[in-house]
């Protein structure tokens, strides 16, 4: 059994606003292994984006423990979480959020640039190859506003792999695309996951995509579906 890249152990999240407590997630436990493609599904307000933010170290849990590559990261300070995100995690968002002042190649290399010029240079051939693999070889020097939505999201997918992360978190990456472009981007993520051995965790509303994942984590009212209250919940295999 491969060592999990991400482990959640009885993770909970409650937001506090003055005296008002808003519990969002309860007793979430599961783990993700390298190369696994996981879909998180659930209705609006079910807590799936919060769960993704916790795993992506954008937020801290109020209960339980999160480990990334066996390291406990739940209570790291902001600076350490930023560095962990930079070095070990990748992100894809619903909106591509490419930087309009930089070319497609520079955008794809941006996470490497944060780690220094030399590292960026060392990763450039690999990123060129990845951009070629997603059909953007003739757009390397083009700036994002000149690309279609699908092309921009493909560039964002490549960017998420820049630092060779242990896991990529994708928050509804196809949500803003037409069905054809959405399919292209989804297939691309699947392919890259398989080829690079990088785990992908994708939040999606689209059951068709979810059914094609290696595993589906279904969440309702802040709990994994099938797990009674108070009982640590596991993952539900999609097939």
């Amino acid at each position, binding site marked *: 059994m491969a060592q999990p890249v991400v482990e959640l152990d009885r993770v909970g999240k409650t937001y506090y606003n003055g005296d008002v407590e808003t519990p969002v997630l309860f007793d979430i436990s599961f783990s993700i292994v390298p190369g696994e493609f996981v879909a998180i599904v659930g209705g609006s307000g079910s807590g799936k984006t919060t769960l993704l933010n916790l795993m992506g170290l954008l937020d801290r849990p109020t209960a339980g423990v999160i480990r990334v590559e066996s390291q406990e990261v739940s209570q790291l300070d902001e600076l350490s979480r930023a560095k962990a995100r930079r070095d070990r995690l990748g992100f894809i*968002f*619903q909106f591509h959020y490419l930087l309009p002042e930089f070319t497609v190649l520079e955008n794809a290399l941006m*996470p490497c640039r944060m780690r220094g*010029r030399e590292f*960026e240079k060392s990763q450039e051939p690999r990123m060129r190859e990845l951009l070629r693999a997603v059909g953007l070889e003739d757009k390397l020097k083009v700036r994002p506003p000149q690309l279609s939505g699908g092309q921009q999201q493909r560039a964002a997918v490549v960017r998420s792999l820049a630092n060779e992360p242990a896991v990529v978190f994708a928050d509804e990456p196809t949500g803003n695309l037409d069905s054809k472009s959405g399919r292209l981007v989804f297939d691309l993520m699947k392919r890259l996951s398989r080829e690079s051995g990088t785990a992908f965790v994708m939040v999606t509303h689209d059951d068709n995509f979810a059914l094609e994942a290696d595993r589906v984590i279904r969440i309702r009212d802040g709990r994994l579906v099938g797990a009674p209250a108070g009982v640590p919940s596991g993952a539900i295999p999609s097939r």
Partner: protein
Amino acid sequence: MLSYFIRSVAFRHLRYSVSQSLLTIGVVAISVLLIIYLRTIIGGTQQRITQNTTGAIPHITVEPPERTPVGAWQLSSLGLDTDNLYVGEVVNLPKAREVIEDWRLWLPSLDAVDPEVATVSPIVTGQAFMNRGSRRQSVRVTGVIPERHNGIVEIEKNLDAGRFIGMVSGDVVLGQKLARDFGLKLRDKVRLVGPEGLTLNFSVAGIYTTGFGQVDDGQVFVTLRDGQSLLELGGSISSFGIKLTDLYDAENVARRMVPVFPFKVQSWVVQNPNLFRTLDAQGQTRDLILIMTTIASGFGIGSILVMVVTSKYREIGILKAMGATPGEIQSIFVLEGLLLAFIGCLVGVPLGVLLLKGLAAIRSVGPDGRVDAPFLIEIDPMLLLGASLVAMATGAVASWFPARKAGQVDPMQVIRGS
């Protein structure tokens, strides 16, 4: 130091936000230009006014001590005999002439009193009548050692004819206007009548135009010895005049001299209190305008950077999600502020220098008919550097707040906000 990532993002922001960048650079350039212009022009004007006022007078005057009247009731406290004090009729005592008798003994001490002392000139001065033919006019006779006194008022440099340094007994050197009024030219004879009626004959040895009214009109220079004779001062002098290397330090030097010398020591500042107050007020007004300009420029940079931060809100969020630290994001925007300020200086300083050079080249005819530059302009490299540093510091301070705001952007809010 600033990482490659910080530098590249900051440079790229500026390059692709041309209109915002140009606007900020313009604001900084104008403020730098104003700082350079105001300081130079007002500084030059102040210098000119000060030079015009102090050019013909000593920076420090050393005179005989004033006699302080003592009340009858104070005599006993001074240890004086009051038993034989009689109060009788009021008599007018002959007014004693206040002079410095032992000036030769004091001269070396004055020469060495302070490193800032440039010249010490023993002076005798008094009123006399100048006669030539039927013309008669009251003049101020100043007896001097020309070699020394030329350090107080530059007569030699401003001679229209003849000489000042090297004048000998029997020579008189006077202003062009007085010479014209009396129809005098070099080597003409003229008669001076002292206050006690003593008459001496002089020969015109030099005619000058200094531009200082009080020197050019109604004053004549003779040798110290002739002055003493004409004014019947024996071997005494009326005062010492002292010129300093830094006229603005006159009050400090005078204060240091007071306990050392048994004389009345006064600086030009005390003798011209209104001028000093005017210059001071002018300086404060200038500083206030400069402070306002700097603040306005700071607000300009700050508000433009706030706009930049607001427009880049999503990108900042995604950079932070990808692992950029708050410090790195903050550094990007502080660097942008500094770069804009720096480029603003690169534009503003040459513009300021060009403007000043243009103004320095202007010539106009003064009321005395002389062609002169209306603006006294000296381009001070330290001022250019200082103005640039002020602009850079303003850029850093003004960009700090928007940069801090950028550093605090919560990536989750950006993601949710979409």
